[in-house]
């Protein structure tokens, strides 16, 4: 009589390894996917807390001073992610500058830029070219942008005085979008002093 056949070890090990690699791939894809929680909440008419409010970043043109969104609490904030190499950012810069002038005149808030994967010299040249007067944070490493799920430029988030997100524009903003969003953000009662 022949001895009982032994199970082949190598195919089992290879199979397990292949399964582990596929599992790793699936994990990478799932965790690298776009998080739409913020967009869904805003679309549903909610005002979710603006993420990353405590992340401090150096101010463009003054690396010694660091600011976070929390520093602008009590003001309407138009948070705009931009870069000098982004063509739509160039197109919307005059609109944002006009909005900054309106917000400043009304003492209502500010546009706050956040540079995205942009060399500081290029960002500064962009500001000079478009006569940008609003402040910008240098989001080196894109930690702040990651909090907002920013993958493509430009993207704009309008925050009310309580640091809640009122409107999102993933793409080039229009004056109409900004006017409506800011009106919505200002409609919220000011925080008690």
């Amino acid at each position, binding site marked *: 009589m022949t001895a009982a056949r032994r199970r082949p070890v190598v195919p089992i090990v290879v199979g397990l390894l292949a399964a582990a690699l596929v599992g790793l791939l699936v994990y990478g894809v799932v965790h690298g996917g776009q998080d739409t929680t913020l967009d869904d909440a805003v679309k549903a008419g909610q005002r979710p807390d603006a993420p990353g409010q405590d992340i401090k970043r150096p101010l463009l043109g003054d690396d010694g001073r660091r600011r976070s969104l929390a520093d602008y609490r009590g003001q309407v904030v138009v948070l705009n992610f931009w870069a000098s190499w982004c063509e739509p950012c160039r197109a919307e810069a005059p609109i944002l500058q006009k909005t900054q002038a309106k917000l400043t005149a009304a003492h209502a808030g500010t546009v706050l830029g956040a540079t995205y994967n942009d060399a500081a010299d290029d960002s500064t040249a962009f500001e000079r070219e478009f006569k940008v007067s609003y402040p910008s944070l240098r989001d*080196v490493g894109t930690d702040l942008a990651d909090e907002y799920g920013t993958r493509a430029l430009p993207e704009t988030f309008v925050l009310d005085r309580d640091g809640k997100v009122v409107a999102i524009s993933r793409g080039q903003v229009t004056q109409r979008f900004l006017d409506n969003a800011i009106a919505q953000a200002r409609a919220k009662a000011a925080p008690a002093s």
Partner: protein
Amino acid sequence: MTRLRSLLLLIAVLAVALPATAHAATPQTSLHDVEAEVMCVSCGVPLAIADSPQADAERREIRRLIAQGKTKGQIKDALVAQYGDRVLASPKDDGFGLAAYLVPIVLVLLALVAGAVVLPKWRAKNRDDRAIPAADGPRLTDADARRLDEDLARYDV
């Protein structure tokens, strides 16, 4: 006086020659060198194969740094200061990036273990196969073997 003049001439020659030698010893970094080790941060692919406005801006920044006479290491440090750690082609050694370092190590270890288990068995099996002569029929009985010996003996010269 002539000796002093010769000495001054020698110093002048050395003053000109030494920086040139030092320059030759540290060749200028090329865009190609740096591109191979950094990423296009917005596209998530190596800069060497990236084609996007951000990649072009990054190349401009590298050229600017090369023009300033910076070494590859200094340029990479400057790029990290501008774009963060993600600009480096080597993955981070934490979170999911850690898998890039661990998976090859685990695979090599598994290959070694598999080799240590399978190879001795395979070699032993080969040895056994060589030890067993090819048998076309049943083994000879003692009587047949005796008869074969007697037959062969008759052919002895």
